[in-house]
């Protein structure tokens, strides 16, 4: 694929033809292209939006200056183009930007200078096609009580533009956007056309639509990974408003079509818990293993939130680096201080078998016509819990009764019982390695009109 470049062009002929309303006395000139002194990309996670900042030093003549900016074959949103004067702001004014007739992907700024001068300008715009994702590798210790965690970020560039020596920043957060940048960049006209075009109502003005950005970051088919191993780079993290900004040390070059992976953080000795859950409404008859730990300082984490991404969990099983792959899950955004819960899938090493040991019907009631109108359904439950692993495990049994009219009685372990909400109960118990336990309780559910009786 040929390299595409954004052009800030010197085109005198076009200047003369496009400004008919200036009288002959006004000086019209174009600003000559100068070297780029700085470029920065700020890439948003999951929004397909990158804010590009391009700093240059330009020469202005006295009077009107025209600066043409074109971006053919890239995915720049023309509505986001902005030009800010950073020096001599009292002498230079940005009058307007025109998207001329008959040409696509071109914007022309009209800049008025009170005198000839030189000034640093900053051009910013949004582009689509650059994305980043995070993923993690966890290494569980042999005793399954601690783990090490490495976080990575992968930046991929499909914007159509090369970004050379750019300061690269990544934003973690959920922004509200109305329109996808990819759509804005592909429109025929920068701001669309008037609502009532050619006498008929067109499709809704894009500013009427409220499109929330909810897409999950899709796994990227990288065309190439890092070209060569360079030294480990630091990633500085800063909280801003509702977002976190990760700034990659130094500058990065990410050509169009390439991807780059960087280590975001490393932490050791994270205390983890293994929880085995049985919840028929969510997991069927499986016992599912969850690995949990907190994103906090005690765990050598807790400096920034953890962005969502895939986590692969391995376990060390030998002294010579032998590993076992335990499972993988996609984690959501984890704020500082919050617990992360990884679903590692069904397991056969812990068993939770609920059985109904006795069944009765009591308190049968009848209506005025003698028809049955309600009763109490009584079940004696026994939960058989078995831990076949060599580590202590926390076992959780959750039952959703789909009714708030019930009673739990005759519990063998009342201290392990919790009524989560009006129709959900939970037993949570620690089981030592290679051990069994049984929990018994009686569930009485009121059916029919019995629900309304005192």
């Amino acid at each position, binding site marked *: 694929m040929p390299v595409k470049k954004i052009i800030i062009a010197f085109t005198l002929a076009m200047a003369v033809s496009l400004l008919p309303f200036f009288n002959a006395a006004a000086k019209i000139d174009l600003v000559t292209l100068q070297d780029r002194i700085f470029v920065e990309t700020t890439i948003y996670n999951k929004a397909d939006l990158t804010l590009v900042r391009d700093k240059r030093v330009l020469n202005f003549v006295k009077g009107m200056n025209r600066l043409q900016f074109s971006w053919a074959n890239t995915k720049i949103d023309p509505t986001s183009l902005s030009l800010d004067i950073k020096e001599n702001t009292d002498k230079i004014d940005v009058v307007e930007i025109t998207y001329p007739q008959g040409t696509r992907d071109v914007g022309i700024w009209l800049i008025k200078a009170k005198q000839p001068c030189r000034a640093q300008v900053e051009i910013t715009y*949004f582009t689509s096609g650059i994305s980043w994702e995070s993923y993690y590798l966890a290494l569980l210790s042999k005793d399954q009580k601690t783990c090490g965690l490495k976080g990575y970020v992968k930046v991929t560039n499909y914007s159509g533009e090369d970004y050379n020596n750019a300061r690269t920043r990544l934003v973690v957060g959920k922004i509200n956007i109305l329109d996808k940048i990819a759509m804005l960049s592909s429109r025929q006209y920068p701001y669309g056309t008037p609502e009532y075009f050619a006498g008929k109502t067109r499709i809704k003005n894009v500013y009427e639509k409220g499109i929330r950005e909810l897409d999950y970051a899709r796994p990227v088919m990288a065309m190439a990974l890092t070209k060569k191993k360079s030294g480990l780079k630091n990633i500085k993290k800063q909280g801003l408003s509702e977002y976190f900004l990760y700034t990659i040390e130094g500058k990065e070059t990410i050509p169009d079509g390439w991807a780059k992976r960087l280590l975001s953080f490393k932490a050791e000795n994270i205390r983890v818990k293994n929880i085995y859950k049985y919840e028929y409404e969510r997991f069927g008859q499986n016992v599912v293993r969850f690995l949990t730990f907190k994103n906090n300082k005690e765990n050598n984490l807790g400096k920034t939130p953890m962005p969502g991404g895939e986590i692969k969990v391995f376990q060390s099983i030998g002294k010579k680096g032998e590993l076992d792959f335990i499972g993988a899950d996609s984690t959501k955004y984890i704020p500082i201080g919050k617990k992360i819960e990884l679903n590692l899938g069904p397991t056969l090493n812990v068993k939770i078998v609920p059985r109904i040991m006795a069944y009765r019907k009591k308190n049968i009631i009848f209506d005025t016509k003698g028809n049955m109108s309600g009763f109490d359904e009584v079940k004696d439950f026994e939960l058989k819990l078995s831990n076949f692993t060599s580590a202590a495990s926390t076992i959780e049994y959750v039952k959703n009764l789909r009714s708030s009219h019930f009673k739990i009685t005759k519990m063998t372990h009342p201290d392990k019982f919790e009524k989560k909400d009006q129709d959900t109960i939970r037993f949570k118990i620690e089981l030592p390695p290679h051990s069994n336990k049984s929990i018994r309780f009686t569930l009485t559910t009121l059916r029919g009109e019995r629900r309304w009786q005192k």
Partner: protein
Amino acid sequence: MAKIKYISPFLLSFIILSGLSFTAAARTNLVSLPQRQHVAIRLGTTGKTLVQEKRIMLFKKGINKVDFSWQNVEIDPSSITLTTLSNPDKISILSVSYPPGEAALVWDIKSLANLEEEVMISYLLANIDGIITYKAVTGPGEQAIDLNSYIVLRNFSGENFNKIAVYLNDGKPFITSLHHLETKRILVLQKQNIPIKKLYTWNSLKMPHEPEKLKTAVGIPTSYEFYNNKDSGLGTASLLRGKARIFQRDNQKSTIFLGEDTAKFTPVGDKTDIRIGDSRDIVVTKLRLDTKRTNIKRNTKGSIQVYDEYIKNSIAMENLKDKPVTLSLVETIQGQWEPLDISMDYKTQDHKTLIFNIKLLPKEKKSLNLNYKVLNIFVNQFSQYNRVVNYN
């Protein structure tokens, strides 16, 4: 290129001599439509823009015919008007005719004398409009914004305007050019240090109640609120509806993009809010702890007709940020209800909407008990009255 066509005096004269009948005694002349002296456009909200052209016309004493025609542009024929400005007492419009099969009209104008007259021709032109966009930049503390407002002129009308005065809602015009198929964005308002208030709003009707169960992190909608009044540095004109993009300055001499929203029309004195995104560092969980029916009344067949319901809810809130926040919690209770145990202060926005403004310190957790009873819940044919249906 499409353009408004004007029939030249020579051609016009030719048409009149061959096609029209009038008595030799009447003094009838055809007035040529001279060049525009000044054009103003006033942007509307209906997709059609009012164009007003000033021209100097020469009227002869007697009846004058003025022909106005157009091609490849969409002018609303019933909107075309001609107003005399210099000597309105000496000139009167006798009639307006629409020739068949033509995009044209002919004015019959009577002049009491030979006059050089300034006239205003007004008409609604389609496919040209202006939309508003905003750019706001806040500082690290998020206490105020610098607001820029832009007008984006879009001209797909078929007409080229070499020099026009564009009027906005504040009555102040600016001069620019606008050719067919051209789009132009111009800064029209620039204000700094407009105070803002940052809002976090959790609405129990719209938000998931148990976010821990979801695969993706749930965020609390976050927005900036500000007033369009003198205290905030605005207050001179309504703020028109338009797309607003918000940025924040960081400590790297750069900015980040916070989010965008549609700013609603805000008259002077009113407030508006712009949503920037979601905060995923504030977590709200609502659990229904109990529901009990009491005071049940039945018919002779034993069917329930009406009852009361006691409801117990618990709402847990956690601020995981390093800064204090004020969370606005919105709860809706339909029907006839009474509070039993509501453990925090609230305001009632209306009969069913409660708003709690809850301050959370950094890393603080709070819990709200929301216990109430709903009275006289009807079943069967009157169940529609369990919520207010007619607000008028």
